[in-house]
């Protein structure tokens, strides 16, 4: 069960990532990124995360990403699911 305002999605398997979203803690947006490929792809991951958050109208909250070498499509999907869960949308 997710607490209101908090959502998590993904896994720590190779080529995946774990996204944890807390929409209740801040008045601005804080994105924390841990990645096995941060040096090379950190910028690109953050770009995809920011774009996805913008599409979903998320302007504040703490977003933690633990990346295990995920491709862009997985980053987008995991952020979307975590945000939807944090917003308390039905899982159906």
């Amino acid at each position, binding site marked *: 069960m997710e607490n209101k305002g908090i959502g998590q*999605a*993904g*896994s720590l*398997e*190779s*080529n*995946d990532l774990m996204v944890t979203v807390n929409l209740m803690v801040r008045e601005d947006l804080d994105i924390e990124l841990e990645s096995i490929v941060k040096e090379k792809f950190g910028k690109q991951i953050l770009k995809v995360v920011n774009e996805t958050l913008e599409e979903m109208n998320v302007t504040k909250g703490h977003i933690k990403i633990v990346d295990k070498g*995920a*491709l*862009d*499509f*997985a980053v*987008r*999907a*995991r952020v*979307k*699911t975590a945000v*939807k*869960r944090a917003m308390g949308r039905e*899982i*159906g």
Partner: protein
Amino acid sequence: MKPLRRTMLFVPANNPNMMVNATVFQPDCIIFDLEDAIALREKDSARDLLVEALKTVDYQGIEILARVNPLYTPFGETDVRELVKAGLRNIRLPMTEAKEDIEKLDALLAELEEEHHIESGSVKILGAIETAKGVINSPEIATASERMTGISFGAEDFTRTIGAERSKGGEELFVARSQIVLSAAAAGIDAIDTVFADVEDMEGFRKEVESAKGLGFAGKSVIHPSQIPVVHDVFTPTDEEVEKALRVMQAIDNAEKRGLGVISLDGKMVDAPVVARAAKVVRLARGAKIL
């Protein structure tokens, strides 16, 4: 040309690694699974992952299907709505028991095609038959919609519904498998055989594939990449079969050029079933890259 569906590889839609790399194994079709492989609490995340994969991953011409959740569950309709919008064009509907199950999906797809300006009728359906009731109703299921490309057989649930145990020899499945093939053939669509769960038993697997081919199945659902080459090998025609098929096709071509209505080869009349069989052999030979 009609696509080959010798192998349909199941890939759980919650595994980004497999979702990108499944193409390496060159199955004819990939089925992204949102149903049995996905736990209830992850139905939403698997769907989101598949939506994003469909939008961006290049599947190199491999036919992509999604096994959605049944429409009577809280997830099925959302699966179909989101995936079609993202570009999915083939749906494998599990637990199909009656033509009404297909008609319900057909109506939903018609609505979505209109809403998203997708060509009418372009989203196709493969109905998975997994119960005694489904087998009995398979002739109506196979013809329930113009969208049908095939029906598949699921033996695990089926044996449970008839109160039998699944045996290595598969005697308990014989009537059902034959019925599925007949229903598909009468409807002019593909019959796809059940999965073989023991991925270590390659000898038993090969025997089951040979039996499926012998019964008339167009292909088999597979759960592990190692099963793919075995199916493709079994479905590869012999040189003799290919040569004969090519001669039939040549005879048709010659007869058409000369305006002849009746075709003969080696003094024997070549009728429609012979032509269909030859065309199938040519398709399989091309698929196996021996032609």
